[in-house]
């Protein structure tokens, strides 16, 4: 009897969902919609709300509307740090483009049977602890670190080079962390490139150099664009790399915002600056979607 009841219930439920598909879709999507609403959208709303509040004494927040935090967007210190973050993110993109193109090109054209394995090697570090990998750069770049020790040992230098706690160290960390994000879309677009077009170029008398700059490069513009956005967006808002590898001189916007929250407890201002960072990221992504290839980016991110 009991089994029959379950069966009948199932049947009538299925009939109900068949006749009212909206309920089925709604029920199936409700868990993710719930999580999205509660833990992504509402917290975002709260950040916007906080950005309009007044800062009280000793890091408290007073429930009074003000635009003070927005006036502080033009604070020269903030603008300077913002400009430096953009500069470092752009440099990261440029270096990743050059290095990533080399690797992607090599794997796509000379990878042979090892293509999948090489791609695997490119992705693998991304799935390991990012904190541990960034920490490793401290051991490599510090005054008594491996790089300086090695250079002194081969007597290239007498004094350790200042490699850590500056913009150079941050740049190394950024390139190291985000290089795979550039390689994957570049590889995908090189792999998709029609080989007969390249042969045609050669047959028509193009030299290897001409063929590369006039055929290969323009045809992989999409991958270059995807990769650049995927590298630029997280590099701009990076927090941990400037925190561990940059000193006071290599402050980036992410670390600056965190400082407003943790150190100074200026939550309204920290909220406003977070919104500026988010806005910048969203504008960039919107522009990119307009140019096309948004879908591609999501699929190739992994």
């Amino acid at each position: 009897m009991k089994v029959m009841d379950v069966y009948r219930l199932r049947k009538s439920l299925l009939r109900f969902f068949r006749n009212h598909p909206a309920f089925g879709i709604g029920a199936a999507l409700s868990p993710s919609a719930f999580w999205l609403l509660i833990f992504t959208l509402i917290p975002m709303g709260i950040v916007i709300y906080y950005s309009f509040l007044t800062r009280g004494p000793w890091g408290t927040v007073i429930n009074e509307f003000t635009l003070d935090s927005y006036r502080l967007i033009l604070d020269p210190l903030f603008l300077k740090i913002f400009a430096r973050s953009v500069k470092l993110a752009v440099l990261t993109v440029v270096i990743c483009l050059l290095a990533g193109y080399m690797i992607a090109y090599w794997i796509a054209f000379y990878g042979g049977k090892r293509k999948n394995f090489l791609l695997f090697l490119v992705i693998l570090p991304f799935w390991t602890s990012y904190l541990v990998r960034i920490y490793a750069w401290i051991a490599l770049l510090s005054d008594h670190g491996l790089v300086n020790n090695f250079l002194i040992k081969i007597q290239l230098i007498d004094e350790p080079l200042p490699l850590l706690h500056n913009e150079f160290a941050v740049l190394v960390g950024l390139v190291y962390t985000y290089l795979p994000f550039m390689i994957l879309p570049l590889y995908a677009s090189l792999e998709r490139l029609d080989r007969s077009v390249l042969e045609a170029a050669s047959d028509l008398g193009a030299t290897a150099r001409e063929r590369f700059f006039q055929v290969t490069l323009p045809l992989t513009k999409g991958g270059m664009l995807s990769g650049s956005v995927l590298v630029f967006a997280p590099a701009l808002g990076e927090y941990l790399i400037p925190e561990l590898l940059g000193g006071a001189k290599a402050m980036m916007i992410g670390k600056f915002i965190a400082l407003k929250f943790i150190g100074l407890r200026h939550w309204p201002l920290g909220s406003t600056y977070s919104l500026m960072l988010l806005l910048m990221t969203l504008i960039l992504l919107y522009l990119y979607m307009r140019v096309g290839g948004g879908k591609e980016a999501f699929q190739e991110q992994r």
Partner: protein
Amino acid sequence: MNQTSPRLLFIGCVFLFVFMYAPLLVVIVFSLTPTEYGVSWEGFTLKWYQAVFDNKNIQAALKVSLMVTIPSVLIATAIGTITAFTLYRSKFIGRALFQGVLYIPLIMPDLVIGISLLLFYTSLNLELGILTILMAHVSFTIPLTTLVIIARMQRIDRNLEDAAMDLGADEWTTMRKVTLPLLKPGILAAALLAFPWSFNDFVITFFVSGVGSSTLPIRVYSMIRLGVSPIINALGTLIVVLPLILVVLGLLLERRRMG
């Protein structure tokens, strides 16, 4: 195309692969040598691993990490499966918008996610602890699991499901006996990748963890703040190598062809 790569390109790529793997190798190598500062090789030892296993703080952090990661992987994989299936199979108004909003956590800077959750929890007067970390982890893991499973959905032959329905199976039976078995490698891959995704998270967790609730990455971070030490290398090696087994399995499953 000629088969041998130009020498310059080859050398450049070898250099770049060294660049990509040197930091991990340095951590592993220097976890096995006794020097205090971990900067030069002075013989083989396992004493730093012994120190890791004896450390009460690390044990406590590992416990917190597992209490966060295991439930969040299970919840996010279950929700990701239903979401991916529905998004891929149903047509409804606002589907593209829903998908776009769903992927927001993948695009948002981690810092902004962490801060917004911190403000959210504080506004609700929630005490920061394992539960607040767990909720945060589920929310940033759902987009990942959904993405991985949707990729698998695209490779499923719709005809198999239609055949089941034609042969008299209802939607429920088709789902259980046909779709889910076909989707299983994708679901497993999603779970295996979600594990390091959640386990390794530092930035978001940093903002939503309370005083008594440090996950392993938070613990490692506070050890780094105290200075470079070989015990960090040993702990770092364990954190990198152990989840890697799951990642390799996950990536292999995710890439495997149908059939």
